[in-house]
């Protein structure tokens, strides 16, 4: 028996819900930043993104042992090694953007959109939000596609 295997389907569902919420929050945040509408909603979207992304990451980490044994080791590594490669890219990218997500959250709360001194800081805020958005889109597509091969 693998750790948390009996909860894998529930964790997978929560991972999906939190992932969709992350993508929605990041899209709203990015659109608002691109339109230069730096109002209170930027902070709200960044906060939702932070909580949802952390939840997505935690639920994914908890169900990963089941996926590693029942899906990856039993099927993907043997029959679809390229799918294992896609999954590895997904999981490493997810870890890499965890700190940028924290950065987006902290910067959104600290910056003053009306202050001229903070004008250049929006390069990093927008850039990090863009990187997170691209990783979320890639991970959502790969997660969905891997689920069509076999799920937990």
């Amino acid at each position, binding site marked *: 028996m*693998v*750790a948390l295997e009996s909860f894998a389907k529930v964790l997978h569902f929560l991972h999906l819900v939190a992932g969709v919420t992350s993508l929605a929050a990041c899209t709203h945040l990015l659109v608002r930043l691109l339109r230069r509408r730096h109002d209170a909603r930027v902070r709200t979207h960044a906060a939702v993104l932070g909580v949802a992304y952390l939840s997505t990451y935690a639920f994914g*980490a908890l169900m*990963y*042992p089941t996926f*590693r*044994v029942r899906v990856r*080791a039993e099927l993907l590594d043997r029959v679809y*090694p*390229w799918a*294992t*490669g*896609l999954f*590895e*890219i997904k*999981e*490493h*990218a997810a*870890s*890499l*953007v*965890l*700190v*940028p997500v*924290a*950065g987006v959250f*902290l*910067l959104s709360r*600290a*910056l*003053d959109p009306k202050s001229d*001194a*903070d004008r*250049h*800081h929006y*390069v*990093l805020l927008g*850039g*990090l939000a863009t*990187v997170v958005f691209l*990783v979320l889109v890639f991970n959502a597509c790969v997660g969905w596609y891997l689920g069509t091969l076999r799920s937990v």
Partner: protein
Amino acid sequence: MRRQDALLLSVCAACVVTAALYVARPPAPIYYPLEHVWRWQSAPGVAMFWYGRSLVALAGGVLTLLAGRPILDRVEANSAAVARLIRPASWVTLAVLVVTLGHIVVHEHASWMR
């Protein structure tokens, strides 16, 4: 240094440290899900390297963020000089993240997709 400048530079440093640790792959514990054990050395069987590798990289990034901000807050710096540093630091950080993601793609492609 202004609070916002200290925060931005700390976030930049944390992102770069996380990316560097991810690429450098320092020794990290490996989880064996069928045996429910952690080991430092690689052994036969189904192994999970992701937990340890992510833990080390994220710990480095979070520690940099937590330590960097109060240190930079106390630094007496010329505000004009710091302001000139903001944009280059931001672009370098974004470039490091993109290059690291590219490195991950190339590495996994070579390992699994050829």
